C-alpha cells in the first residue's frame, strides 16, 4: 500500500515531464494500434473466408476467363456440394474515386454459398426475379445514401456502356468481419447484354466458387477439379478461398511489412523516450534511494519503486492511447469509405497495445533500476552534497 502510494506520488512529481512522456505514449500506442488495424483490414478478406469454399480460376491468370460449361462438370466432382460463379465488373460509379467491388453473379447459388450476406426474404426474392436488380452491402449503401428501389448507374470499363441497376436489397454482414462494401448483380444480365452489344459468345466466367462437404478434403477436391481440365484450352487452378485471397494480399506484402515495421519502430522510439525519462528521474533521486536503503529498505524495494513508477506512467499513457484509438479508427474508417471494407480495432490489437505499454514500462525502468539497486549507499548520499 505504501509502495503504491509512494510510486503514484513519484510518478506525478514532475508533472510537465510526466505529461509530455504520457502524450508521447498516447501518440505512439494509438499509432501502433491504427497501423496494426490497417494491416488487419488488408487481411480482412482472408479472415472472412470459409474453409468449405474453393475458388477455381484460369490457371494462366485471373484475367483469363473460364467457360461457363465447366460448372456442370465441377458440380459432378466427388466432394463438391454446390457451385456458383462470378465476374469482376470493374464499373465506375459517378467518378473513379467512388471505387467499390462489383460482381456479376449467379444470384441464387451465389447467395446460398455466402450465408454471411444476410438479406431480408422479400428483398432476396425481389432481387432473384429482377434481372436488372442488384444488391449492395450496408456499408456501401450508407456511404452513397442508397435506398432500396434506387436506380444505380455504373459506367463499364471492362464491359462498355452504361449499366443501370435497380437496388433490390441491402444486406447486413452476419458478423463484424463480413465485407459490406460489395455490389452484386445478375451474371445473366452481363452475359446477355455483352452478347447483344459486342456480338460475341459471352458464356465465360471469372471464377467458380465451389462448396465442399469437408474442409479437410480441400486439397483432394482441388486436385480432382484441376485434373478434369488438364490439357484443355483453359486449364484451371483451384485453391481454397483463403489461399485465393492471400494471393491478392501477397501483391502488397512489401507495403504491409513496411507498415508493420513502422509500428514496431514507433514503440522502440517511445521506449527510448521513456527510458530517458526514467533514467533522469532515477539520477535525480539517487540520494532518496540511498536514504531508503540506509533506513533498511532493500535494493529490491528501490527496484520495485522504479518499475512501479514506470509502469504507472506507461499504463496510463498507453491506456489513454488505446481508448483514443477507437474513435480515431472509426473516423478513419468513415473517411476512407469502402477502401477498407472492414476497419475495426480487433481485441488482439487492443491486447497488443496494452502489452506494448507494459513492455515499454518495464524496458524503460530496467537500466535505471539495475543501476540504482547497485549504487552504494555512501555514494548515493554523497549525491546530496
Amino acid at each position, binding site marked *: 500500500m505504501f509502495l503504491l502510494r509512494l510510486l503514484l506520488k513519484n510518478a506525478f512529481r514532475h508533472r510537465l515531464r510526466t505529461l509530455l512522456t504520457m502524450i508521447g505514449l498516447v501518440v505512439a500506442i494509438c499509432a501502433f494500434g491504427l497501423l496494426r488495424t490497417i494491416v488487419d483490414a488488408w487481411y480482412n478478406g482472408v479472415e472472412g473466408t470459409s474453409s468449405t469454399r474453393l475458388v477455381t480460376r484460369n490457371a494462366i491468370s485471373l484475367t483469363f476467363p473460364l467457360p461457363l460449361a465447366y460448372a456442370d462438370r465441377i458440380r459432378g466432382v466427388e466432394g463438391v456440394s454446390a457451385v456458383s460463379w462470378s465476374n469482376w465488373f470493374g464499373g465506375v460509379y459517378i467518378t473513379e474515386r467512388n471505387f467499390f467491388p462489383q460482381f456479376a453473379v449467379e444470384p441464387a447459388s451465389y447467395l446460398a454459398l455466402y450465408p454471411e450476406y444476410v438479406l431480408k426474404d422479400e428483398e432476396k426474392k425481389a432481387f432473384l426475379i429482377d434481372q436488372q436488380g442488384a444488391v449492395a452491402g450496408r456499408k456501401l449503401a450508407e456511404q452513397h445514401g442508397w435506398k432500396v428501389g434506387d436506380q444505380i448507374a455504373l459506367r463499364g470499363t471492362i464491359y462498355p456502356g452504361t449499366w443501370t441497376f435497380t437496388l433490390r436489397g441491402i444486406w447486413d454482414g452476419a458478423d463484424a468481419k463480413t465485407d459490406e462494401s460489395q455490389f452484386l448483380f445478375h451474371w445473366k444480365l452481363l452475359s446477355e447484354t455483352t452478347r447483344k452489344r459486342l456480338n460475341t459468345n459471352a458464356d465465360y466466367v471469372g471464377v467458380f466458387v465451389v462448396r465442399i462437404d469437408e474442409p479437410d478434403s480441400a486439397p483432394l477436391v482441388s486436385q480432382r477439379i484441376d485434373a478434369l481440365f488438364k490439357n484443355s484450352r483453359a486449364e484451371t487452378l483451384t485453391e481454397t478461398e483463403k489461399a485465393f485471397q492471400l494471393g491478392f494480399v501477397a501483391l502488397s506484402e512489401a507495403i504491409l511489412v513496411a507498415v508493420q515495421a513502422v509500428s514496431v519502430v514507433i514503440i522502440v522510439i517511445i521506449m527510448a523516450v521513456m527510458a530517458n525519462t526514467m533514467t533522469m528521474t532515477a539520477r535525480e533521486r539517487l540520494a532518496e534511494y540511498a*536514504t531508503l536503503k540506509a*533506513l533498511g529498505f532493500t535494493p529490491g524495494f528501490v527496484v520495485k519503486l522504479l518499475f512501479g513508477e514506470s509502469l504507472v506512467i506507461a499504463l496510463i499513457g498507453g491506456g489513454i492511447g488505446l481508448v483514443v484509438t477507437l474513435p480515431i479508427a472509426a473516423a478513419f474508417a468513415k473517411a476512407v469509405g469502402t477502401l477498407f471494407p472492414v476497419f475495426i480495432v480487433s481485441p488482439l490489437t487492443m491486447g497488443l497495445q496494452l502489452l506494448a505499454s507494459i513492455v515499454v514500462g518495464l524496458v524503460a525502468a530496467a537500466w535505471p533500476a539495475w543501476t540504482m539497486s547497485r549504487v552504494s549507499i555512501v555514494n548515493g548520499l554523497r549525491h546530496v552534497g
Partner: protein
Amino acid sequence: MNAAPSPPLIAIRELSKAYQRGEQRIPVLEGVNLEVQAGEFVALMGPSGSGKSTLLNLIAGIDKPTSGRIEIGGTDIATLSEGELADWRAANIGFVFQFYNLLPVLTAFENVELPLLLTRLSRGERRRHVQAALDRVRLADRAEHYPNELSGGQQQRVAIARAIVSDPTLIVADEPTGDLDRVTGAEVLDLLEQLNRELGKTIVMVTHDPKAAARARRLIHLEKGELVPDEAPAGA
C-alpha cells in the same frame, strides 16, 4: 566487591578502510581502535579527509571495512551480508543527515513513519509511535506538512523524529547542523542533548563545528585516518 564493567556498545578493533583507484590504494582509516559505551554522546572531529565520515559510515553499517572488526551491541557487522545489514540498520540505527534527506513527496508524518514500515507494528501502533516522536521534536502540529513547507530547522527535527521513532540502539548524525544557521543549529543540538540525557540514546556525531562538538560528552579527533587520544570537550 566491584560490579563487572558492562561491555561497550561499540567496540572497534584494528579497523582499516582503503579505497582502490585503479592500481592505487588510498588508505582512509588505519588500525583504528575505539570503544563507545551505551548512553555516550560522542563527537567525531577532524579536518577534511581525516576519515571521520568514513568511520561514521562504517559504524552505521552503510559501508564495509577493508579489515578489522566493528562490534555493535555484540554483533560484528563487518561479517553481515547486505541483506542482514539492511535488517540490522533498520533495527539498530537512527540516521540524522546534514541535508535532512526527507522524501519530498511524503508528509512529515509519513517521513517519520518510514522506518516503522519495516517492522511488524500495526497501523495504529505506528501512528502512536510517530506522534510520540513528533511530540518529542515539538512538531506534532506540522505532521501533515510536506518538507518544502517546513524550515531547515524543522526539517532536521523531522529527520531526528525519524531517527528515534523505531527506538534504535544508536543514533548517527553526520554534520547535523552543517546546513543550519547558528540559532537553529543550537536548537537541533539541544534536541540531541535531550535525547542523550533524557532517553539515554547513544549518539555518534560527526561535526566540523567546535561549538557543536562541545555539546558532546566525549570528543574524538581523527587525523589522517588515525585516532588521536580522547579529550573531554571544551564545554564538558
